């Protein structure tokens, strides 16, 4: 019984967590590739929300060393485009600069 409750709770908590936390954070943390510095690097080169998101989408689905910011070993992120876009939206909202400067 307790097991079932635990499983249900786990499933619920996973379900409740957003796509970004669910799909991206875990792998990146385990590989010591924190997403915040990556975000700021993208800002440095692509500036706007539109620019950053478009560049990320391109680099994650079609990693090309010419464009990648981390060039160790190009890693193709296998996600559905819709999922990826949703994750990127959350990613942007989480780290965006607008509204955070005092």
């Amino acid at each position: 019984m307790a097991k079932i409750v635990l499983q249900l709770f786990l499933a619920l908590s996973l379900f409740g967590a957003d796509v970004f936390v669910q799909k991206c954070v875990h792998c990146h943390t385990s590989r010591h590739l924190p997403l915040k510095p990556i975000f700021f690097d993208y800002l440095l080169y692509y500036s706007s929300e539109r620019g950053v998101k478009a560049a990320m989408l391109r680099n994650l689905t079609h990693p090309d060393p010419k464009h990648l910011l981390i060039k160790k070993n190009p890693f193709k992120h296998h996600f559905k485009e819709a999922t990826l876009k949703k994750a990127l939206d959350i990613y942007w909202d989480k780290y965006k600069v607008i509204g955070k400067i005092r």
Partner: protein
Amino acid sequence: MDINLPSERKSLIKFLGLYIFLTLIILALASVMYYKFEKDVMLYAHLPKLQEDAKEVIHRLKAMHESLLEDNFYPRYSTFKSAIYDADYVKIFSLLDTDSINFKNFLYKQGRFIYFIKEPELYYLGAKYVVIQIPDDERWLVQVKKNLLIFGGLFLLFMAILGYFLVKQFLRPMKDSLILLNNFIKDTTHELNTPVSTILANIETIDTQSLDTKVAKKLSRIDIAARTISTIYKDLTYLLMHEKLPSHIENIDMNELLAQRIQYFKTLADSKRIKISFLQSPCFLRADKQKIARLVDNLLSNAIKYNKVGGTIKIKTFQNGFYIEDSGIGIPPDKQKEIFERYKRLTSSEGGFGIGLHIVMMIAKEFGLAIKIDSRLNQYTRITVTWQK
């Protein structure tokens, strides 16, 4: 010399209009160019300082960026304000007084502020555009306005003087020929007076009764011709001199004057077998007698000239007015207005200078007389002259 001819005045006005128009356009263009130039000079004088300011902001942005925004305090300075915008012109952070930034210009003035837009090589915090704003004290503008006033004024003065000489140059040939013509006419008319008067005076002394009828007829024709010349002479003198002739106002007994003028034209009327009837009631007018005689003469002479052979002329005086009615060709309604213009003649078949009615109009205007035309084509023309009590 004063300017008399309307055509002359018209072309003069046209020339002056064009001249003023061109002068103002040149002035406006020069002013705008000068203003823009001075503005640019002012803006570029601020540029090194603005570059310096932008550099400091970017330096600070870099530090913030490298701290991954753990340090999120935006730099503030007392001498200038700044803002950062991303590649899509979305405002990231701004201390400016305005949100409308002109990203097409990197250095410009808007309102009372000068704006400078710097693009850093790397977009720290996503900032592609760093906008610096400093206040413009507009001291340069005061100077520019002062200079524009002084030099614009000098330019206008110069153009006015130039224009004056140009107009003089432009009018000289016209003036010269006009003066020549005027003098010529004055001289000739003056020379005309003496012989015509002599002829008329001498005819009067001849006793027509003692003459052969044939000779008497010829003499009467000479008399008519001389009178016509005399009338033309008087009209011409009036036209040429009326501005210089002071009016001698007196109370005129119009019956007496009309009777006298009818008598004068009698020979002429007789020659066309025209019967003149004159109905009198008391009628007085305060005006210059010489001039009113000109008016009456012209009306009478027209009544004879445009009458048919064997026609009639009815003249009637009443209180504050009189009329002269002929049984002549009449005036079509559409012509009745323009008939008083100078040199307009009803038909070109009759002699005369066509200035008669023009003179009538001028004299009527001077003494405030109202003139009314009633006419039926090929039946009659009645010209009524009235005045206020």
